[in-house]
């Protein structure tokens, strides 16, 4: 079959990107190869591991199971966009403080899932956290410290929202 190229325009971490892609180009490969944004990883070929998780129009999805052409005109966020003005996102600090990562390979996807969770549920219970990350596999940590990392970030974000002098939630 002839190789047709499709022009796409999308917003990645607030920046407009334009490119031409093959229809079959998976979004994760577009990010890693075309945009050289290698923070988003690939861990499987069956939509099982979540290492490739990004936030597409506000929802965490597996970017290995979306074609780049489908993202045309849409807005997405990746791990590279978490840190703002050299200030870490609370989830990044949470993973560091609570030792929520070891080899670091699942971490970007894990953090993007967690960010999306905290955006719709500021104070998730342990069960809600475990359910939310059940599409992200980690082979190193046993998840216990990942749960703590999300709780850490949740507390920090809620504290930041509260008026000054207010105590830790």
């Amino acid at each position, binding site marked *: 079959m002839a190789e047709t190229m*499709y022009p796409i325009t999308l917003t990645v971490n607030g920046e407009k990107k334009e490119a031409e892609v093959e229809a079959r180009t998976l979004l994760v490969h577009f990010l890693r190869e075309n945009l050289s944004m290698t923070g988003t990883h690939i861990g499987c070929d069956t939509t099982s591991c979540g290492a490739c998780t990004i936030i597409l129009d506000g929802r965490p999805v597996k970017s290995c199971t979306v074609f780049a052409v*489908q993202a045309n005109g849409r807005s997405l966020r990746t791990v590279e966009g978490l840190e703002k003005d050299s200030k870490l996102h609370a989830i990044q600090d949470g993973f560091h403080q609570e030792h929520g990562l070891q080899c670091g390979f699942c971490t970007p996807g894990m953090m993007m899932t967690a960010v999306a969770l905290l955006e719709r549920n500021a104070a998730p219970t342990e069960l809600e956290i475990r359910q939310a990350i059940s599409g992200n596999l980690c082979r190193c940590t046993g998840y216990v410290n990942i749960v703590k990392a999300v709780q850490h970030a949740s507390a920090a974000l809620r504290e930041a929202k509260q008026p000054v002098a207010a105590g830790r939630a």
Partner: protein
Amino acid sequence: MIPPRFDYQPARDLAHAFQLLAQGRGEAKILAGGQSLIPLMRFRLASPAALIDLNRIEGLAYIKENGDLRIGAMTREYELETNGTVKARYAILTETAAVIADPLVRNLATVGGNLAHADPANDHPATMLALRASVVAKSAKGERVIPIDELFVDTFQTSLRPDEILTEIRIPKPASQSGGTYLKLERKVGDFAIAGVAAYLTLDDRGAVKSAGIGLTNVGSTALRAKRAEAALVGTTADEKAITAAAAAAAAESQPTADLRGPADYKRDVVRVLTARAIRRALARAKGGS
């Protein structure tokens, strides 16, 4: 795992989609959530010449209640799972959506796709059978309403004509004193069911079962309605004796095969166990509990 080449065809509206389907001559495939199709393409087990993308069509994703419940085919599982009305009045649907694959997949996977893909391992079919739902199929020629019992023909095969697209799911208004649940046994979270059972009961004012719906997941070449199990309940008060009879009937009606999810006998027995548990919970809900 890299998918083979294909033509990407974003449909502007349904009319455009029908036109593209016609041009596709059976070699074009509808792209909804893509969470089942894209993995198949990555393994090159599916290699459609073209994908007709419904994601850009306005107005195919909605959940509205006017008498019955109407779910747009492109409604994401996440929307169904978190919808307040559904949670309050159709708990069985919330429960079903909540156990489909994993939360990331549910952000893209669609209710319509889960039915139209007709995978016997998908979870919505059994629930829709229990709820006696129907689906709306549209084509250039018009639309028709297909009762859920007539939708599933065989594994990956529905009664949708090649020129038709499933656009809406309709679920009857819940009668007073009705309730249901969906129970799924999986090897681990995110897996297809070893077996799943959906049960939906409606009681009459004397507390007897007026109607019963029981659907089974992944124990046959399609999702199955356990007719004899339903019959075993209707007219009874769903006491333990009736529940045992219904559960045994459901097990007998299931047609599991042995695979990595266990031996056939085991799956049959799981159907029995889950059916009994599902009926008990459905009954409690029909009686106003939860």
